[in-house]
């Protein structure tokens, strides 16, 4: 099955350095009261086919701060394709979010979500922050949770690379909507990168002074350490739920797959082949590893158990299939395949059946799933310079989230962040 989609409108990115207001920290939020979610009503069942859009109203003060918050909430919720917005003065909404904004001295927002059908309040919450964006994304998450019973991804981030010039790539971090981009590492040629599953550490392979090392960054402390260094090429692959890191190294000559823990201990070699073995990524349950090998003559995706046994070839179509990424439920592997002279994103069931092509225009590479599995980030040159796009997995529409004048690539979606 070929999946179609179209380019959605481009959002205005930017905001690399917002006004000082944004730079002040998000201090804390407090719960006034909240309903018990255990037996909550689900307004939209996102698991059912033929999803309907839930009509929602946002009722906000008409101040600039409130309008900015409203814009962010709407943008978050609209991109899911699950919501339609109804003017609060017009009937028809099933939920109304009453959002009271007090911007005098810090920012305090009180959210009250009412079910207009049953005429009762289903959530009331207070947020306190000095920064609009994380606050607005948190509100969007709460509205999303009330509506769907699922965690929203609006507070997640993406790590990605920006080309500065030939041989120099900087690792950056941005919100899922492409905003508040910050630099993480800009001292060399950064390549593969990955999050630990608690969202606390970023791992990245970077070439500095002709050495490819794997670094680990404590994001909160902003402290970088070398995780693995040897002669040859070392590239980080992925992480497991118990903080193992899969990587490739050519320390013994040819590039093989290894695992190590985040403390640099528990080093294990998993493959022994003469050719290239690279890009190892753990399945979400940590039991399997997908990787790329040219042992069959061309680069193809293989899977194996996390102890290196049970190697099995997954892709057979085409002569160039690389860059595997597991879906969060473990059922699918997305990858890059060369098709008609261009690189495209494909998806295959983890048993190797049901290959689908997901992109069709330009070169599209480096797929990475959102933690809820509903979105796929990737890079594409379909509009000129490489940029990062987000695709909806269950409906049409994808969106470029990085500016057109920046060469951005290799998005890696964070886990849920708190």
């Amino acid at each position, binding site marked *: 099955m070929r999946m179609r989609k179209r380019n959605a409108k481009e959002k205005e990115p930017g905001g690399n*350095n917002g006004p*000082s207001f944004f*730079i002040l*920290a*998000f*201090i*804390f*939020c*407090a*719960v006034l*009261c*909240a309903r*018990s*979610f255990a037996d909550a009503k689900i307004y939209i069942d996102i698991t059912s086919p033929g999803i309907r859009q839930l009509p929602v109203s946002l009722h906000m003060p008409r101040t600039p701060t409130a309008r900015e918050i409203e814009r962010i909430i709407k943008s978050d919720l609209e991109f899911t394709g699950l919501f339609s917005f109804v003017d609060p003065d017009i009937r028809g909404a099933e939920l109304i979010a009453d959002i009271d904004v007090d911007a005098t001295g810090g920012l305090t927002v009180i959210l009250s979500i009412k079910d207009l059908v049953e005429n009762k309040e289903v959530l009331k*919450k207070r*947020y306190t922050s000095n*920064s609009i964006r*994380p606050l607005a994304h*948190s509100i969007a998450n*709460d509205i999303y949770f009330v509506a769907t019973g699922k965690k929203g991804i609006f507070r997640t981030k993406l790590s990605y690379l920006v080309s500065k010039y*030939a*041989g120099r*790539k900087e690792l950056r*971090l941005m919100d899922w909507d492409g905003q*508040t981009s*910050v*630099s993480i590492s800009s001292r060399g*040629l950064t*390549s593969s990168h990955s999050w630990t599953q608690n*969202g606390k550490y970023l791992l990245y392979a970077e070439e*500095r*002074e002709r050495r*490819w090392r794997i670094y680990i960054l404590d*994001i*909160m*402390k*902003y*402290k*970088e350490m070398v995780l693995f260094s040897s002669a*040859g*090429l070392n*590239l980080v692959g992925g992480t497991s739920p118990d903080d193992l890191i899969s990587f*490739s190294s050519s320390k013994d*000559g*040819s590039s093989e797959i290894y695992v190590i823990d985040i403390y640099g201990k528990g080093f294990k070699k998993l493959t022994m082949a003469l050719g*290239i073995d*690279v*890009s190892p990524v753990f399945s979400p349950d940590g039991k399997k590893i997908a990787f*790329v090998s040219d042992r069959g003559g*061309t*680069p193809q995706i293989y899977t194996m158990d996390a102890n290196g046994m049970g190697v099995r070839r997954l892709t057979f179509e085409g002569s*160039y299939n*690389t*860059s595997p990424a597991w879906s969060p439920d473990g059922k699918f592997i997305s990858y*890059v395949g*060369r098709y008609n002279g261009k*690189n495209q994103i494909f998806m295959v069931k983890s048993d190797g059946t049901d290959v689908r092509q997901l992109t069709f225009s330009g070169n599209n590479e*480096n797929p990475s799933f959102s933690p809820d599995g509903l979105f796929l980030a990737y890079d594409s040159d379909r509009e000129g310079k490489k940029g990062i796009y987000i695709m909806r997995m269950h409906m049409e529409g994808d969106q470029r989230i990085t500016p057109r004048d920046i060469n951005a690539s290799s998005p890696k979606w964070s886990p849920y*962040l*708190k």
Partner: protein
Amino acid sequence: MKKLMIMLLLITAFGCAKKYTTPAETTAPPEGPVKEEVMREEVLPERGETIMEERVTERVEAPGRETVVESGVPSEEQVKSIFKDVLFDYDKYEIRPDAREGLNAIAAYLGKNKGINIVIEGHCDERGTNEYNLALGEKRAKSAKNYLSSLGVSPDRMIVITFGEEKPVCTDQSESCWQQNRRAHFVIVKSRFPQ
């Protein structure tokens, strides 16, 4: 200052997110003071030896007539004509027959000039994917190193580094351009390698 502010934002954006709703909770405690550890633009410790490099010009079409340098300092022209890029086929890392002559000349030159060491850079064209191309580039550089080693050049005098598709010499989308990028490139180093 701006950098500090950005880092403060980053730290706090991660650190101080909303405490998720446990309904009974009335207030979440505010996060403690923001810890700051400014990551400096790290300066690598100075190595005892500084590597002096001469980057050999990228493309030299004329074959080197004289592959053996008599003595003394070879002229730049001579060096250029010897250390030509070794080219590879698409998605391959085997030394092609047409590359042997050039590698033979390099081995002969290194045999006569013991004070010179080389860095062999492996490169790819842009069509592959980045990570795989890094591995492929390394294979190409190692193929060149192994070939030179088989001709008697000590492996200690050669180090390999891969840049995959990240440092193209030509950026057109054509086969002739891609062919120029699929290369092992030589950089001359006039000292011993550290370690």
